[in-house]
C-alpha cells in the first residue's frame, strides 16, 4: 500500500532541486473538506478555483497547481502533518487555506521551519499572524469585524445590549471586542451569556435575553446548525415582535446558511467584510466564476472570497517575482499587496501582515426571492484592533 508514495518520494529525491520555469507553482491547500466543517474547505477551494477560472491558471509562464489536503476537521496534528508532507515531499511553494484557527496555529511553526509562505484564507483569531513571519492573512480577524458593530450600535442610539456568544476562544474574543468598544462609547451591557459549543437548544438563552429587556441582542456563534438553532429560537420567542434588534458580526447571517434560515433573519443587522450582495463589477465577475466552478446553487460566502483573494495575492506575488520563487522576497511583496477585491478595497498591513479592509454594515432583506445581506453603511480601512492596541501599548 505504501509502495507508490515511496517510489514517488524516491523520484522526488532524484529530481533536480531547483524549478525549471516550466514547472508548476505548487500551492498546498490545507483545509477542512470533511466532517462538521466541510463547508469551509469547499468554500475556500472553490473560491481559489474561481480566481483561476476567471484569470487563467498560468501566471508568469508557470502553471498553478493546487494540491488539496483534508484536515478532517479541527485536527491540529493532521494539519501539521499535512504541512510537513507538503513542504518536504511535494515541495510546495505556498501553504494556503486554513478554515479553523487551531489548524493554522499548529502549522505556523512549520511555515517558519520550512521557510514557506503561508496564506490564511479564513482562520480569524487575531494572534495567528504573530506566530510566523511567513504568514499573511487575506481573510479577517474577528475583532476587526466586531468592533465596527459596537461603534455603529452606539452611534445609532442603541443603549442597552444583551450579549450571547459561543463559549470558546473566538466567542470570548468577540464578546470582549464588542463590550469594550460599546461601553467606551456610552452603551450598556445589560447581561451576557456564553453558550456551550455543542448546544442543540437555544431557547433558554434567548428567553434569558428577552427577560432582560434589552434594545438589541449581540450575537456571535459559528455559522451552521448553531446559527440555525439561534435564529429559530429567536423567531419563536418573538424577540422581533418585542422590538429587540439582533446585531453581531456577519457569521450569524452567513451567506452560505442564510437561505436555510430564511424569514426569521429579516432585519438582522451585522457587520462583515464581505456580502454576496456587494455591488461591484469585481463581485459580479467573482459570483459568475464561482457559479461556473461549483456548478451548484451554493452561494460563495466570506470564506470563498478569502480563497479567491488569497489566490489573487499569490498570483500577484508570483508575477512580481517573474515566476522565480523566493520565500523572503515573496513575503516582502505580500506586505505591500493592495487591490480591489470582490469585497471592496483591501491591502496588507506591512507591519503585521494582516489584512486592512472596509467593514460593511448590512441588513438582511428579501430581494427577488432571495435573502440577502444588503450593505448600507461602511467603516473604511479597518485594521485588526487587537494588534493596534498592542502597538499602542508598545509605544
Amino acid at each position, binding site marked *: 500500500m505504501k509502495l507508490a508514495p515511496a517510489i514517488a518520494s524516491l523520484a522526488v529525491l532524484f529530481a533536480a532541486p531547483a524549478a525549471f520555469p516550466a514547472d508548476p507553482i505548487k500551492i498546498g491547500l490545507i483545509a477542512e473538506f470533511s466532517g462538521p466543517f466541510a463547508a469551509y474547505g469547499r468554500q475556500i477551494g472553490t473560491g481559489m478555483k474561481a480566481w483561476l477560472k476567471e484569470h487563467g491558471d498560468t501566471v508568469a509562464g508557470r502553471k498553478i497547481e493546487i494540491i488539496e489536503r483534508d484536515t478532517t476537521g479541527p485536527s491540529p496534528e493532521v494539519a501539521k502533518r499535512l504541512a510537513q508532507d507538503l513542504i518536504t515531499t511535494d515541495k510546495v511553494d505556498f501553504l494556503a487555506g486554513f478554515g479553523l484557527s487551531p489548524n493554522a496555529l499548529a502549522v505556523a511553526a512549520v511555515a517558519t521551519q520550512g521557510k514557506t509562505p503561508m496564506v490564511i484564507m479564513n482562520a480569524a483569531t487575531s494572534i495567528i499572524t504573530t506566530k510566523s513571519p511567513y504568514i499573511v492573512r487575506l481573510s479577517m480577524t474577528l475583532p476587526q469585524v466586531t468592533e465596527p458593530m459596537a461603534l455603529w450600535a452606539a452611534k445609532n442610539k442603541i443603549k442597552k445590549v444583551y450579549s450571547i456568544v459561543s*463559549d470558546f476562544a473566538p466567542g470570548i474574543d468577540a464578546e470582549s471586542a464588542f463590550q469594550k468598544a460599546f461601553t467606551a462609547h456610552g452603551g450598556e451591557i445589560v447581561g451576557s451569556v456564553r*453558550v456551550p459549543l455543542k448546544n442543540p437548544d437555544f431557547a*433558554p438563552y434567548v428567553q434569558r435575553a428577552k427577560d432582560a429587556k434589552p434594545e438589541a441582542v449581540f450575537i456571535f456563534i459559528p455559522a451552521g446548525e448553531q446559527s440555525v438553532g439561534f435564529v429559530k429560537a429567536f423567531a*419563536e420567542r418573538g424577540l422581533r415582535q418585542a422590538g429587540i434588534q439582533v446585531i453581531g458580526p456577519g457569521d450569524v447571517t452567513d451567506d452560505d446558511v442564510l437561505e*436555510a434560515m430564511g424569514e426569521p433573519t429579516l432585519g438582522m443587522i451585522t457587520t462583515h467584510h464581505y456580502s454576496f450582495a456587494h455591488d461591484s463589477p469585481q463581485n459580479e465577475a467573482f459570483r459568475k466564476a464561482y457559479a461556473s466552478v461549483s456548478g451548484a446553487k451554493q452561494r460563495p460566502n466570506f470564506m470563498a472570497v478569502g480563497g479567491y483573494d488569497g489566490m489573487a495575492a499569490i498570483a500577484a506575488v508570483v508575477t512580481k517575482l517573474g515566476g522565480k520563487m523566493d520565500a523572503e522576497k515573496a513575503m516582502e511583496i505580500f506586505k505591500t499587496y493592495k487591490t480591489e477585491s470582490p469585497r471592496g478595497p483591501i491591502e496588507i498591513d506591512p507591519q503585521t501582515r494582516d489584512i486592512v479592509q472596509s467593514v460593511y454594515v448590512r441588513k438582511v432583506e428579501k430581494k427577488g426571492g432571495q435573502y440577502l445581506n444588503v450593505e448600507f453603511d461602511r467603516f473604511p480601512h479597518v485594521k485588526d484592533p487587537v494588534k493596534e492596541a498592542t502597538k499602542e501599548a508598545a509605544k
Partner: protein
Amino acid sequence: MLSALPGVLFDGVAYGSLLFLISIGLSVTLGLMNFINLAHGAFAMVGGYACVVATLRYGLPFGVALVVAFAVAAIAGGVLERVLYRRLYGRSPLDQVLFTIGLTFMSIAAATWVFGSGQQPVRLPDTLLGQTRILGVDVGIYRLFLIAIVFALASGLALLVTRTRFGARIRASVDDARTAAGLGIDVERVFSVTFTLGSGLAGLGGALGIDVLGLDPTFPLKYMVYFLLVVVVGGAGTIVGTLCAAMVLGIFDVAGKYYVPWAGAFVIYALMVALLLLFPRGLLRRIR
C-alpha cells in the same frame, strides 16, 4: 427568577420531547433487539432529508412529509436489515459497533455527495410557528406540537410492546430466540419488523428534530452522544424509561442553562454520570 419557572419547565419538557424523538428508534433496536445500532443517526438523517425534499421539492404539506420521512427511513432500515444487519445479530457487540460506525461514515459521505455539505432549510407550516399563551405562560406552538406527538407516540409504543401479540412476540424472541422459534414464532420476521419500526421512528424523529437541530451530513455523528445518553440513562428497551430519561435530562438541561448559564455545558454530562451511578441499569429496568 422564580416567575420564569413555568416557562422553563415547559421548555424543559419540550426539549425532553425532542431528545425522546431522536432517541426512541435507538431505544427500540437496542432495547428490544439487543443490537447496538450506532447508525441510528443515519436513519434519522434519512428521515430529515426525506422531509426536506418532500416539503421543498414536491411541496407536500408538513404532516404528509412526516409520514414520508417515517416511510423512507423504515424502508431503508428494512432493506438494510435484510441485506446486512441480519448477518450481525449473533456477533459480538464490538463487531456491531464497528459495523454500524462504518455505515455511519458511508452515510455521511453519501449525504454530502447528494445534498452538499450545507445546512438544509426547513419550512414549518405557519400554524406551527410562533407562540401562544397557556395559563399565563408563553409557549412555542411547535414545542407544544412536539410534546403532543411524544405522548401519543410513547403511549402507542408502550401499548404495542406490552399489550399486543406482536409485542409479546418481540419480547419472547429477544429473551430466547430458540424457544420462541420452538413456539412457532417467526423470529426472523419479528426482528425484521422491529428493526423496520425502529428505523422508521428514527426517521420520524429526524424529521421532527431538524427544525431545532438543523440538518447537514454530519448529523449522525454530531448527535450520537445525545441518542446514547438518553437511551442508556433511561435503560435500554423501556419506552417509559426512555421517556423519563429524556424528560429529566431535558428539564435539568434547560433549567441549568437558564439559571446557571456559566455551567451550561457541564449540566447534561454531569447529570448523565450522576444518574448512571445512581441507576446503573437505567432509570427503569427493562419491562418484562
